[in-house]
């Protein structure tokens, strides 16, 4: 039988909060954040009705509307009779999202071989001996410090930004894949060989299949560093993209655009993370996370 709530339970370890409590508690910080924002916005707008540092709800709605329905300043204006779908497809946020998403997804695809190298490092001793020391060293290089070199090698087009993301995250993913793959019990590998597995069978049908859910989790944990490198590249040298727009808006103190953009980026990353988590659960029903 569920016990009634007592104040002392808040600091208890052996308590089991009711579902209603857990749901309510999880929203408190969101509500508090919005309330604080609203409070400071009201205070600043009382002093200066045109304040742009903490935009009011009306300003934010207008900013969102402009982002979602109007083209960017540098683009041609749309016909006044354009449909809603056309408006959205030519809008500032759509254009920026497509540009950033393309770079992000290409980088994500290029990280797959990095994870496979990590797996090979763990499974094949010679591959481990060849790569490990170099990857450990390369991991310590601050990726942003390579940006000037990347600009010289790849130019200031797409590839320098994509390579910045790949170089920034690949060593971490390689080492993560190496550690995860190395954690597969030796007994399983021995057993696989007694069951007529070849080396490739062991690498791909035994080890990779077992560690795939953990590798997907590793990618999930690296989504934010990946976005960070994307933003760094776009803010320094780009003509479109979500971070480019935020950098432009900063010059104009356009907080009514910056805040919706920030929330949109967070939402996109949150949805991608949720999609990977869902995929992981569906593809690997046997996986028992610790």
């Amino acid at each position, binding site marked *: 039988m569920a016990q009634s709530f007592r104040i002392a339970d808040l600091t208890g370890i052996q308590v089991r909060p009711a579902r209603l409590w857990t749901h309510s508690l999880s929203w408190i910080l969101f509500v508090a954040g919005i309330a604080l924002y609203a409070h400071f916005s009201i205070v600043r707008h009382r002093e200066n009705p045109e304040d742009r540092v903490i935009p009011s709800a009306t300003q934010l709605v207008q900013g969102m509307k402009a982002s979602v329905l109007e083209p960017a300043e540098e683009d041609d204006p749309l016909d006044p009779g354009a449909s809603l779908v056309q408006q959205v497809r030519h809008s500032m946020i759509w254009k920026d999202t497509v540009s950033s998403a393309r770079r992000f997804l290409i980088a994500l695809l290029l990280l797959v071989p990095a994870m496979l190298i990590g797996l090979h490092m763990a499974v094949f001793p010679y591959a481990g001996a060849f790569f490990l020391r170099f990857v450990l060293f390369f991991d310590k290089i601050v990726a942003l410090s390579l940006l000037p070199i990347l600009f010289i090698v790849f130019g200031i087009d797409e590839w320098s930004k994509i390579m910045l993301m790949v170089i920034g995250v690949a060593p971490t993913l390689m080492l993560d894949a190496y550690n995860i793959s190395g954690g597969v*019990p030796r*007994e*399983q590998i*021995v*057993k*696989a*060989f*007694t*069951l*007529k*597995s*070849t080396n490739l*069978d062991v690498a791909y049908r*035994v080890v990779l*299949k*077992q560690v795939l859910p953990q590798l997907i989790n590793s990618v999930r944990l690296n989504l934010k560093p990946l976005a960070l490198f994307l933003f760094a590249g776009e803010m320094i040298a780009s003509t479109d993209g979500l971070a480019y727009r935020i950098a432009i808006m900063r010059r104009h103190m356009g907080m009514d655009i910056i805040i919706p953009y920030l929330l949109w980026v967070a939402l996109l990353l949150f949805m991608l993370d949720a999609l990977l988590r869902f995929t992981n659960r569906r593809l*690997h*029903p*046997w*996986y*028992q996370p610790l």
Partner: protein
Amino acid sequence: MVSAALRLIEDIAPNSAPRRTEIELRDVSVSYRAGKEGQKTVLSKLNLKVAAGEFVVILGETGCGKSTLLRLILGQEFPTAGAIEVDGKPVTAIDARCGYVPQKYSLFPDRTVLGNVMYGPENAKSRFLARLRPSFFAYRRKLRAEAQAYLVRMGLRPQDMDKYPHQLSGGMQQRVAIAQALLMHPPVLLLDEAFSALDPSTRASLQEQLRDVWLELKPTVVFVTHNTSEALLLGTRLILLGRHREDRAGETNLVLDMQIPPSKLPLSMQMQTREFQDLLEHVKQLAYKSSSMNTEDAIADRIVEEGNLA
């Protein structure tokens, strides 16, 4: 009293014809560097011939090299000196000549019970694109039926076949692991403390099952355990290893090599018999002594035992 028990057991032993040697170890020693302590010897001058169809149980205290011996036969480790042959060929790597059932992590967690059991034969049949041929699907159907039969033989129910290993108890997992190894029809089956982590009733039931399977299929079994009753219940031959002492370098650490013909009684009844209890007591005493006595005494005891059996 012990020698009487041994003679009694010898009397009921079948007079079998000489059988082919399945595993042979010649002067096998294993040492490794142990930091500041220098060289540490785990196995020393071990000579052993295991005939086809024998059920050899390796018993001994912790650190005496039981599991090392198993890994040598398996090909997971190599001796510092000496030679090992399985099925008439030198052991150079882990391969399908030996089926293997470890204490834990014996199943692939990403495969169902049937998937685990069918993994080996599927590998043996064909590889990669060859698995798309219609003949492979027909083979798979046949294999599925055979795998199910093995699993039922090991005490699994039809509804367990599509479960993942984490949905099974420890005992069930070990049953599947044994079926997985047996379906490959290996000449040698190696079990490394395979029942150690199980509760007594599950352990007893698995012992019965393993003995029945062995009586029916007669694979050569090498079973490592630290449980003396289990060793005497299951084995047809007992190998007792003692811990090697550095001050007795060059001497074998094999303390006892004894034949135990299998009883026709069920294991639980066999355990109640006077002969079994006497033998158990004797081996326990010997195992206890081997943990403290020097190798010379151990060899002397072994000679006495062999004299009793002869």
